[in-house]
């Protein structure tokens, strides 16, 4: 029964006092719009314990951790349901997980997804069902889903896995029949198959440092209220912890009405058909090469240059900077080897290619110069020189080397391609387009030339032309997955290029329709 003293309105002053207490101890920050719901929670608990004033109850909260948790359980009760905002789960199944799986080395079969702030468990179970529907276990993937929350009561509910009708509103009948069992009382219980992929644990997102089990190796993190519960500073720290915990290329899902603008610039914002997701950047390089090793584990992504608004251009810049950093790191990390004895032009060329792969541009140039002393008309050597100079930003040297290569053989597609890249980097789109077109004229399957051409058109908002070139790039990749162009992909895997093209293609088609 409600005590009359307690039933009165909560003054703003009292609200703030409780709010600050909650915030100090849990990190959860209630906006003033939550005044009424906090009043209900306070009155409920105070009445249960027999307190006659909220002031007395405040004292109890300060003394008694158990009671603090009880209140927290009430305050954080979340309106949640299965497949809440279904578009996010569709993006998870159709785009995010395939991308993540494609990037995993052959030996790694774990897929780890963390539902942070999982409340009563609908979200991690929805993830589990999505994984089962994809059939990933059929190929030997080991999916793991973890749900964490600060509310022990919610966690107990989650572990029990029994839900009423209200949680089920987004669940299609065929999903119900595959993944739920009806209980005698008319509720729905998660079946063992769904349950077997999911673990639950207590975790307060605001308490640092995070346990080691949470730090690192997550492929996807769901936290769909983070910017709502916490104040800005706390939100920034939580998001930073998520960033550090994600694998490169891993995704953060936040609420569909939330944004990380002004919270974090570490992530790449990815639009997947109207669903905005945040990806931890991969240290990938489009037009460069170098050692894969000697890379810091969690380097924050360089911030995009403010002048550029085109994502493709930004990506290229990021890639270029990452490549430069890696080349420096590799050069510093590995001692220069003894120069082997001269083995003729062929042998030196082999060595040069090896040095190229190892990310030692200076040694490549040295070898190329020795080759050219022996064989001044070696077009491939000039080409190699052009590539290395272009990648080091020495455009004048690179241009000269390209011209020398083309003087020997005017039909070298790679020389045209490198010219195109140089002009593109110098901001001369007109000449870049011309060189990429010449590249394609010589070798129609030179996928990267199509791709770069498409990127230029896209930046110029020529959507139809861009879409056509993305299509050509895709066709070329499928036709010649190991074509000459692969040498210039800088370790960038063909399937990633394919996905990049597909994404841009969809974007351009949409823009073309809209415009």
């Amino acid at each position, binding site marked *: 029964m409600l005590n009359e003293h307690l039933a009165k309105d909560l003054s703003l002053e009292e609200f703030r006092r409780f709010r600050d207490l909650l915030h100090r101890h849990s990190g959860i920050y209630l906006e003033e719009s939550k005044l009424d719901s906090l009043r209900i929670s306070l009155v409920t608990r105070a009445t249960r314990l027999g307190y006659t004033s909220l002031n007395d109850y405040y004292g109890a909260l300060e003394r008694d951790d158990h009671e603090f948790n009880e209140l927290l359980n009430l305050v954080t009760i979340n309106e949640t349901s299965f497949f809440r905002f279904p578009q996010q789960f569709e993006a998870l199944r159709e785009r995010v997980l*395939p*991308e993540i*799986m*494609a990037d*995993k*080395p*052959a030996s790694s079969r774990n897929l780890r997804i963390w539902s942070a702030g999982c409340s009563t468990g609908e979200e991690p179970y929805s993830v589990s069902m999505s994984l089962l529907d*994809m*059939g*990933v276990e*059929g*190929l*030997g993937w080991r999916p793991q889903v973890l749900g964490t929350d600060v509310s022990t009561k919610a966690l107990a509910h989650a572990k029990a896995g029994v839900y009423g009708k209200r949680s089920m509103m987004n669940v299609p009948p065929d999903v119900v029949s595959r993944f739920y069992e009806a209980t005698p009382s008319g509720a729905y219980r998660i079946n063992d198959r769904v349950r077997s992929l999911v673990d639950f644990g207590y975790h307060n997102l605001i308490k640092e440092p995070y346990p080691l089990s949470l730090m690192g190796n997550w492929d996807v993190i769901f936290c769909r209220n983070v910017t709502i519960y916490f104040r800005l500073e706390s939100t920034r720290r939580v998001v930073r912890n998520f960033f550090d915990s994600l694998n490169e290329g891993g995704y953060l899902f936040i609420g569909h009405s939330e944004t990380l603008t002004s919270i974090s610039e570490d992530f790449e914002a990815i639009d997947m058909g109207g669903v905005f997701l945040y990806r931890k950047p991969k240290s990938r390089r489009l037009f460069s090469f170098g050692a894969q090793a000697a890379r810091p584990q969690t380097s924050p992504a360089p911030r995009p240059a403010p002048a550029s608004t085109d994502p493709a251009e930004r990506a290229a810049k990021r890639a270029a900077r990452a490549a430069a950093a890696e080349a420096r790191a590799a050069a510093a990390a590995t001692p220069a080897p003894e120069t082997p004895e001269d083995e003729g032009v062929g042998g030196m060329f082999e060595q040069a290619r090896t040095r190229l792969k190892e990310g030692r541009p200076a040694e490549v140039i040295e070898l190329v110069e020795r080759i050219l002393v022996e064989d001044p008309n070696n077009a491939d050597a000039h080409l190699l020189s052009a590539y290395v100079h272009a990648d080091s930003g020495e455009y004048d040297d690179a241009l000269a080397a390209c011209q020398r290569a083309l003087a020997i053989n005017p039909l070298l597609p790679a020389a045209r391609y490198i010219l195109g890249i140089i002009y593109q980097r110098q901001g001369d789109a007109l000449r870049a387009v011309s060189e990429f077109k010449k590249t394609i004229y010589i070798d129609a399957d030179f996928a990267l030339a199509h791709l770069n051409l498409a990127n230029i058109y896209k930046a110029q908002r020529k959507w139809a032309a861009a879409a056509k070139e993305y299509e050509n790039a*895709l*066709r070329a990749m*499928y036709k010649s997955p190991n074509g000459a162009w692969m040498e210039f992909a800088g370790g960038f895997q063909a*399937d990633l290029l*394919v996905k990049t093209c*597909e994404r841009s293609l969809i974007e351009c088609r949409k823009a073309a329709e809209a415009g």
Partner: protein
Amino acid sequence: MAGARILAVDDSPTILEMIKAILEAGGYEVITAVDGAEALETARAEKPDLILLDVMLPKLDGYRVCRLLKFDQNYKSIPIIMLTAKTEEQAMATGIRTGANQYLTKPVDPDTLLGAVAEELAKVQG
């Protein structure tokens, strides 16, 4: 690549038998699966040299099966030929998205099927 092992996936036993007969006549060893989930399990257990995949399959459709295989470092090198009843353009577009190596429209002409299989196997062999 005579003697290569081919996984044929179709939910219709009659079509499956027909495909099996054609391929065996071409000198190939044939293993079969009747739905998407079984296709994945078989691909994992048997590591076939090539997969012939119907689009309309129970449990997991052929597109999903194809994508899972093609987005996986361990399986992406296995050539996949998709069999579809859909029109050429649709199938082509979907084939690109799913990463299938080729598609053929049903009903399949035996020579076309054997030609496509030989072509894909030759590519893998280099």
